[in-house]
């Protein structure tokens, strides 16, 4: 027996199959609607419960912080099933507080942290990252081994969370673990990473210098070290940066993006901490094929060079890249060559606008 749908001959049993599908989708649709309702009820209940708990805990924790109430009173209010939420509650306080008050919050959290540390065994990377963040914020000293181990976690999120937790400790003992793990963060933005590493403070400088010097390490990691040393104003890193530039200039192949990043980072470091004796290397960089490298070379020259270098910087005004031109006019302004810039601005020179913009003080 056959029947037809829109003129297509179809066997009867297909009708049963379609009917079955209809039933399946009917049940699925109803289930989804029920899910939406259940989610809403759960969310509302959860939110009300949290609100209720916070209303109960808030006055007591304030009393504990100002020393008017004993800590035991607060612990007595925390039921077993609310412990994780209580830790979250303390976490929010700890990020807002400093000094003795923060220490009190950390002490309050301690008895609940072993349960949080067990979360590091969970399969979900997000849960492990959350646990690392909590432990890092609330008791990094006790849980340092676990957090250091998390630097090698297969989840990049866990590794970076651990890195951030350790960096904020500013402990010289942790520098080596963190610097040795830099390659675990290879996907992360270097600007973000250098800001994180700079939190380690001056104790990190020798290890970072070693990374910058080490030609065996990836160019990206070395660029990261240079950026961090720049943030830390490491005067002893200038010679290494110059050596990096010399080695880079000697490379005959077309520079890769990572290689350009390393050269740019080294030039920025020289601009910040370089000395007059480095000027020869910087001048050679003005002939680089990459505009970003030339632009940073102009910046560095304006910083470490002397009056003899003004003609070179002026010449950069005719560079084909407007980026280099902007670096050049800013450099000339920094060197006090305002008269020259005024003449340029008043002229019909194709780059007169750059001078006008810098003189108007609107260049960003």
């Amino acid at each position, binding site marked *: 027996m056959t029947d037809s*749908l829109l003129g297509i001959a*179809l066997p009867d049993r297909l009708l049963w199959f379609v009917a079955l599908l209809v039933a399946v989708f*009917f049940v*699925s649709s109803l289930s*989804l609607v029920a899910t*939406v309702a259940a989610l809403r009820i759960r969310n509302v209940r959860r939110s009300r419960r949290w609100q209720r708990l916070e209303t109960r805990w808030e006055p007591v924790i304030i009393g504990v912080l100002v020393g008017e109430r004993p800590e035991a009173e607060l612990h007595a209010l925390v039921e077993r099933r609310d412990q994780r939420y209580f830790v979250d509650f303390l976490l929010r306080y700890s990020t807002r507080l400093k000094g003795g008050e923060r220490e009190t919050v950390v002490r309050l959290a301690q008895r609940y942290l072993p349960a949080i540390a067990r979360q590091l065994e969970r399969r979900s990377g997000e849960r492990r990252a959350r646990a690392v963040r909590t432990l890092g914020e609330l008791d990094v000293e006790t849980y340092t081994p676990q957090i250091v181990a998390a630097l090698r976690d297969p989840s990049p999120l866990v590794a970076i969370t651990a890195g951030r937790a350790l960096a904020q400790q500013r402990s010289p003992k942790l520098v080596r673990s963190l610097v040795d793990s830099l390659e675990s963060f290879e996907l992360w933005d270097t600007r973000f990473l250098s*800001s994180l590493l700079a939190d380690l403070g001056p104790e990190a400088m020798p290890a970072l210098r070693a990374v910058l010097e080490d030609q065996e390490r990836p160019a990206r990691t070395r660029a990261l070290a240079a950026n961090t040393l720049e943030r830390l104003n490491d005067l002893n890193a200038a010679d290494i940066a110059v050596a990096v530039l010399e080695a880079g200039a000697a490379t005959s192949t077309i520079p890769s993006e990572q290689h350009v990043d390393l050269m740019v980072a080294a030039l920025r470091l020289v601009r910040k901490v370089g000395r007059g004796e480095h000027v020869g290397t910087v001048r050679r960089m003005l002939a680089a094929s990459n505009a970003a490298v030339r632009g940073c070379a102009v910046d560095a020259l304006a910083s470490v060079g002397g009056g003899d270098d003004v003609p070179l910087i002026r010449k950069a005004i005719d560079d084909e890249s407007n980026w280099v031109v902007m670096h050049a006019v800013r450099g000339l302004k920094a060197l006090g060559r305002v008269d020259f810039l005024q003449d340029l601005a008043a002229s019909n020179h194709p780059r007169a606008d750059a001078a006008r913009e810098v003189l108007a003080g609107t260049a960003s």
Partner: protein
Amino acid sequence: MIEFGWAVVGVFNVLILIYFFSLNSVYLITTAISSRFLVRYVKRLRTVDVEQLIASGATPPITLIAPAYNEEASCVDSTRSLLTLQYPNYEVLVVNDGSPDRTLQLMLDAFDMIPAVRLPSATLETAKIRQVYRSKQYPNLWLLDKENGGKADAINAGLDYCRTPLFCVIDADSLLERDALIRVSRPFLEDARTVAVGGIIRIVNGSTVRHGVVERVRLPRNLLARFQVLEYLRAFLSGRVAWSELNAGLIISGAFGLFRRSVVVDAGGYATETVGEDMEIVVRIHRHCRENRIPYRIGFVPDPVAWTECPETIRGMSRQRDRWQRGLIETLMRHRRMLLNPRYGNVGLIAYPYFFFLEMLGPVIEVGGYFAFAMTLLAGRASLPYVVAFLALALLFGMALSAAAVALEELSFRGYPRNSDLARLIWLAVAENVGYRQMNSFWRMQGVISAARRVKYWGQAPRRGFRTGQASG
């Protein structure tokens, strides 16, 4: 001869069935991928401290490029809202694309703008720049006044004057949530290969806007706008999340997207000869990066929100959908060598075929299908039980997918806090299958016809502007 005609109708009907099952299967798969991602993403957000990110000084500088054409109703409000964003280092660059209305004058007056000099950083060809202005009140607010060249041309002009590594394109009539920039920039911090990221677009009609900030979220009162709320939830939470997981997203909405400037400039900037410049640039970035072996990621994150006003009239909607369909066709035809080409990975083998066969040709099959369906029914050549069963299946399939999108919203961001709004969304999931979807297909079919006739009309819906202190829409 008549029998031959019926044979053609029969073949067409087979096509419709294949289309129906393919399209819904793709939706089902993308919804499944999205739900898995969103569950993880919500947990991931708990490890992120937005305040800490802002304080870290690690956030990359961003230029917000807001092209404006005849935006006198909303340009001042939306610019004011852009100036209050929670981000440490950003510039706002409004590009007045030769608006004949009072857009320029309103901007000059409202922000005390004076002529200024700014050297371009790139040399993308654009219509003539008349003057650059800078605000005396807000040093990070700039305005480019240029001759009319279209939206893509205005963005290119903004790109020429952009000096930051990232730029964000936002419609001049959209509102960004205060932390939207920090949230949308996060993928760039987490993965240095990221070249573009889109955020979610939500519909502002019906919600309360005060001083450029959406204060109270409500469903619109207008039925067409309500349907669009559901449609946007489905498109973003079920669709774009999944395509982004596959690194095969072909669209970042023109209303809100963050891009790496150097990559867009190297790819040649926005195409001015299409009305779908937002899709075209994303497809071109895929192509540019794949062809030049540049490691890259194009992502979508569901938490940064841009609010936008949607059309509330049939005329406004038909124009918008016509334009979207034309943009889709122009882009897909322009880059058709990517279709089923393994060189382009998931984009060429999965996303492109989906958009090409199901989204681009979809309206033709759907609208043709309605006619074939009606003819077959009228001629009595169809079995009633089958017809009823298939119609029920189509309705339930569509309803299940929409309900899943609402569930994803409730699971993740709970954008509509009122229970009545949630109930309405569920009701809309049923109601949209009868009428709205069919109208949508007709509007998209109009787009197919317009594309075939090479119509270039932008088809902008009139703007009402955000109503301060009361429900908009």
